[in-house]
């Protein structure tokens, strides 16, 4: 197994499948009355969050605690994030405390790569700037595999602000590794200029792609994009790229709807669609804990699942 999980591209197909399969086993454990496993007893996992993300932090915290690891939450928000020393000095501090794994969330793309130079423990990327969010991609793959029965040859459509999305980057890489066929749909302003070199298809026309999709993943549109000339207005974006009821009806009957959250209901996704039985949005959250347990378990060299 790899030492760090920083990019979805760190995972070959065997490693990715091992994580998904391990998560399946751990999910069975979670159904027991006593959910806690002794696997990582005595090990220390630090949640190093330079950016607010209660959802992701809680998910990692729950994952580490269910494996009996000691968890230290280090919220660096409010400290001088813009100063580089803080990352290195924080890393040296964690190193001195003997962290076995550092889960890092940071607004700067590449911060986990830098951190990995300065700590001996495993680095897990919990989202870095507009780069990647590999555990999100793993939990999405886990959710899709459960609903669709597998990923090989499945047609996955990812819709929205790909340019600034770490979720999209990690998903494109991981899904390609797992043999799925990915199509990105976005206004051209929200796609990287080099997207033609990515292992996926690209379309500007959501309506033509929906009937050929086994899963449709809607990305959140960040408020700050709305005033930066990426698209003329929220209304126009929603009309052209939002998943409303009419568009939902164009999807195949068994196709599922996903969203990494938090959602802008009525903007990129209609409330009825988000709450439909074919939406996996709530499952994704539950699966997040399981997949993060699997990642920590495997990176920290856990032995057998009890």
């Amino acid at each position, binding site marked *: 197994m790899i030492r760090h999980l920083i990019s979805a591209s760190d995972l070959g197909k065997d490693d990715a499948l091992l994580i998904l399969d391990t998560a399946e086993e751990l999910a069975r454990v979670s159904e027991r009355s006593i959910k806690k496993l002794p696997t990582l007893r005595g090990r220390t996992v630090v949640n190093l969050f330079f950016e607010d993300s209660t959802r992701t932090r809680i998910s990692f915290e729950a994952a580490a605690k269910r494996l009996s690891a000691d968890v230290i939450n280090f919220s660096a928000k409010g400290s001088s994030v813009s*100063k580089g020393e803080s990352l290195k000095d924080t890393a040296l501090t964690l190193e001195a405390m003997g962290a076995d794994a550092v889960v890092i969330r940071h607004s700067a793309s590449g911060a986990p790569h830098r951190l990995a130079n300065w700590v001996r423990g495993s680095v897990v990327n919990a989202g870095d700037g507009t780069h990647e969010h590999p555990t999100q991609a793993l939990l999405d793959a886990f959710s899709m595999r459960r609903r669709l029965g597998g990923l090989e040859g499945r047609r996955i459509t990812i819709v929205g602000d790909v340019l*600034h999305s770490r979720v999209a980057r990690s998903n494109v890489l991981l899904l390609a590794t797992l043999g799925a066929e990915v199509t990105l749909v976005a206004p051209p302003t929200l796609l990287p200029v*080099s997207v033609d070199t990515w292992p996926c298809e690209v379309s500007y026309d959501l309506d033509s792609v929906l009937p050929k999709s086994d899963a449709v993943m809607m990305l959140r549109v960040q408020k700050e994009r709305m005033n930066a000339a990426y698209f003329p207005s929220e209304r126009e974006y929603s009309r052209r790229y939002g998943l409303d009821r009419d568009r939902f009806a164009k999807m195949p009957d068994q196709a599922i709807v996903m969203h990494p959250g938090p959602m802008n209901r009525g903007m990129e996704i209609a409330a009825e669609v988000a709450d439909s039985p074919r939406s996996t949005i709530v499952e994704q959250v539950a699966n997040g804990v399981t997949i993060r347990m699997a990642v920590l378990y495997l990176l920290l060299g856990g032995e057998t699942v009890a």
Partner: protein
Amino acid sequence: MIIKNVRVLGGEPVDIRVADGLIAEIAPGLAGDGEVVDGGGAVVLPGLVDLHTHLREPGREDAETVQTGTQSAARGGYTAVHAMANTSPVADTAGVVEQVWRLGREHGHCDVQPVGAVTVGLEGRHLAELGAMADSAARVRVFSDDGKCVSDAVLMRRALEYVKAFDGVVAQHAQEPRLTESAQMNEGVVSGRLGLTGWPAVAEEAVIARDCLLAAHVGSRLHVCHVSTAGSVEILRWAKSKGWNVTAEVTPHHLLLTDELVEDSPVGAYNPIYKVNPPLRTRADVEALRVALADGTIDVVATDHAPHPVEDKETEWSAAAMGMVGLETALSVVQEAMVDTGLLDWAGVAERMSAAPARIGRLPGHGQPIEVGAPANLTLYDPSARTPVEPAAFASKSRNTPYEGMTLPGRVVATFLRGRPTVLEGKLT
């Protein structure tokens, strides 16, 4: 003094007699009284001239001072450097440029020719007192807001026109500001994968095109700093074909390194040692820049030596300072990229790294051909050496080199400033 056994521009071995700061005699087998320096068969070039150096003093003496920067220059074979204006305070008055000029004279490792700011405080709003700087003891002829672009078209036009009165030149840092807001690296395949905000080539090319047209319109001299893209080369080639008075420079790092290093390098992904303005571009850009330097579309190699302390580089990518030191590796990189590839001979190197920058900067004492009667500004260079780059050995106060650990060809053996050695056997005198 006699400098024995050197090859002028790589030619046959000769000896050079230096007297009173001038070249007195060039012939084989010279003998006589006085000091003898054994050149050991080194190539001798006219002392190098840098059109683009950041000496950081006043204001950032933690990164570099006039003393350490000029020591670094001498070790790199330079006898003159143009000190950029983005100091603190900005070199936008006669007082500041004279201070920098005087510090250069006091330390004496190489001549320091200050560059004056185009606009007050580099803020792009009001012209600085260009005439006062031109008339000062520093005799400023090159004006630049380097680090920032003179993006206002009217202000750029006025600056180009105004400096004609004293034979000045505006050296433009071509970077359209709106297209490069929070830009982090070249916009392309790598930036897309790494999720770093892209710095499109067009942001440089659009400004160069505009400025060439402006310079033609008002009949002025324009110099373009650190050209980094194949598209910029095409525009410059077109402007020169019209006979317009446009010159351009390229940095050593843009002749050798590409943006792929940001993703994949021996020092790890996202290492800000590769963060620089303009950003490292693609292999195709590097190839176009080499061809342009060889055919004269690009006139000059300029270092853009940009020292930064360790803490400004040991950070996340987006928090890090932009720039690389370059004075002590420039000639080696040019040998690697241009000479060893057969694109440029030593006469070509002398033209691009000494004669042309001295001409553009209006430094009459520099960049002269190596002939009897010329000032003895000379660089002895052994192209056969191959040594790993060791930042700890730099004279510069800063260590932010992208070449650490790389083995580069060549070594500066000695540097002479008006007959006086500033470097002997690779060491400062």
